[in-house]
């Protein structure tokens, strides 16, 4: 029996922006229902890597295959969750309308179908936002907006979920809720996430990709303070996280 095809395959990838090398000789393979966290310093190439996977940028060298296809072809099978802070807070759009955008495609003209609305409502319900569908996107909390954007990605029926810094600008309780949501989704989807929160990575993800021009993958079980220091350089502050404590008082720490 042949092994199942990886969800993401990157081989020998180089990317430069205006002649400045951003990523060099990237090799990466992510299996179905894997969870990978992408961390690294600002300007290290984390978001660039995500955009290459989405086909929004083209590498100068190397090959990317997403679900066995070129990124541009596989886009409709990829759910993407950008940072919510990027949106105009005055834009008049309801939560349901944002989620319905996940049902758009090149050929859809005119109103959404009943099937589209059903899929959007199911995604909202899965994110625990069923009662907020008529609310303005700008009116709901940061954590709820982040879950709305995840619902939009789910409404697209993607097989791979990419998230760009979903824990930025949300409070600890919302972050905790987000972990739970991702844990549940990871049972059926492959999850890739960009974050600065290395503690977050250690509590949830199976692997961690350190991106700083080059990409090095470690199992999260091997994540140590020394490794993080090497990844970001010496100029960082590490704070011990305590995201998950059971009722009996057993806690898993973000950084060992």
């Amino acid at each position: 029996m042949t092994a199942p095809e990886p969800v993401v395959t990157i081989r020998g990838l180089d990317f430069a922006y205006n002649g400045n090398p951003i990523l060099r000789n990237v090799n990466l393979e992510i299996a179905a229902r894997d969870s990978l966290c992408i961390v690294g310093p600002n300007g290290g190439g984390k978001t660039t890597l995500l955009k290459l996977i989405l086909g929004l940028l083209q590498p100068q060298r190397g090959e990317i295959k997403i679900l066995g296809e070129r990124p541009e072809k596989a886009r409709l099978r990829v759910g993407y969750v950008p940072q919510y802070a990027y949106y105009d807070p005055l834009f008049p759009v309801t939560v349901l309308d944002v989620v319905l955008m996940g049902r758009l495609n090149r050929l859809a003209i005119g109103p959404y179908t009943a099937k589209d609305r059903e899929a959007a409502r199911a995604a909202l319900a899965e994110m625990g936002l069923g009662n907020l569908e008529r609310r303005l996107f700008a009116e709901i909390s940061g954590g709820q907006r982040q879950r709305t954007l995840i619902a939009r990605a789910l409404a697209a029926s993607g097989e791979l979920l990419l998230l760009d810094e979903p824990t930025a600008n949300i409070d600890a309780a919302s972050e905790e809720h987000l972990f739970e949501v991702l844990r549940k989704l990871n049972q059926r989807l492959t999850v890739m996430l960009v974050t600065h929160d290395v503690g977050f990575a250690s509590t949830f993800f199976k692997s961690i990709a350190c991106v700083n021009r080059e990409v090095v993958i470690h199992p999260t079980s091997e994540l140590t303070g020394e490794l993080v220091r090497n990844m970001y350089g010496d100029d960082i502050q590490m704070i011990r996280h305590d995201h998950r404590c059971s009722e009996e008082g057993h806690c898993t720490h973000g950084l060992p």
Partner: protein
Amino acid sequence: MDFLNALADPAIPFLRQALLSGILASLAFGIIGTYVVARRISSIAGAISHCVLGGIGAGLYLQNALGVTWFGPLTGAIVAAIAAAIIIGLVSLHAKQREDTAIGALWSIGMAVGLLFIARTPGYVEPMSYLFGNILLISQADLWLVLALDVLVAGTALLFYHQLLAVCFDEEYARLRGIRADFFYLLLLCLTALTVVLLVRVVGIVMVIALLTLPAAVAGNVARNLGQMMALATICSMLFISTGLAVSYSYDLPSGPTIIVLAGLVYLLMLAGRRLVRKNA
């Protein structure tokens, strides 16, 4: 009362024509104004409106100095507005960091070209009516143009409502969903350009941005979605134009500035009202 009597007076048909064209054009103003406010492209609309003078000047010169009768000021205005929309759109899509410069340059160059052409056009040309508009000069033929623009704008907005919403709200995501975001952005700018040409007739080049954005900005304070904002902006635009026309007729004031001051006052009152409500909440 004077205004209502004048409307009924068969001796002054231009007033009825002005009111009717203002009310009809409000549909295009409301829809496009909503996109302009939501997508925050009012400076692009401003640059397009100032380029219109270049087209009007070229039309006047070609018609009066060179005898090219088929290329009049209206054709010139449409060509200049569409050209400006496409140039700024392409710069915005492919060289975002230069967008401000392109907007500023076209804004001034359009005006300068228009004034040069007008200076070289034989006979006396009064640029004031182009700069400050005069809805009372709208002709029967203009009414058909207004109707055609309404059909084009409303038809596009209905057919591509979700695509345009996605492109305005999150262009990158729209592109990921297979939407031709560049095409829809340029389409939006071209429709804005055509609407601006019509607005120039109503309030003039200098005040186009105000009548394009103020009704939509007032509507945006209460609307729950883009469709509602368009409907409310259309109603606001109708009210501003008809009330402005009535006030200007009753007090013998120029119609364009009266309409704009009225719209500005309503917007400011709305902002103050919201602030008060928030303070007391």
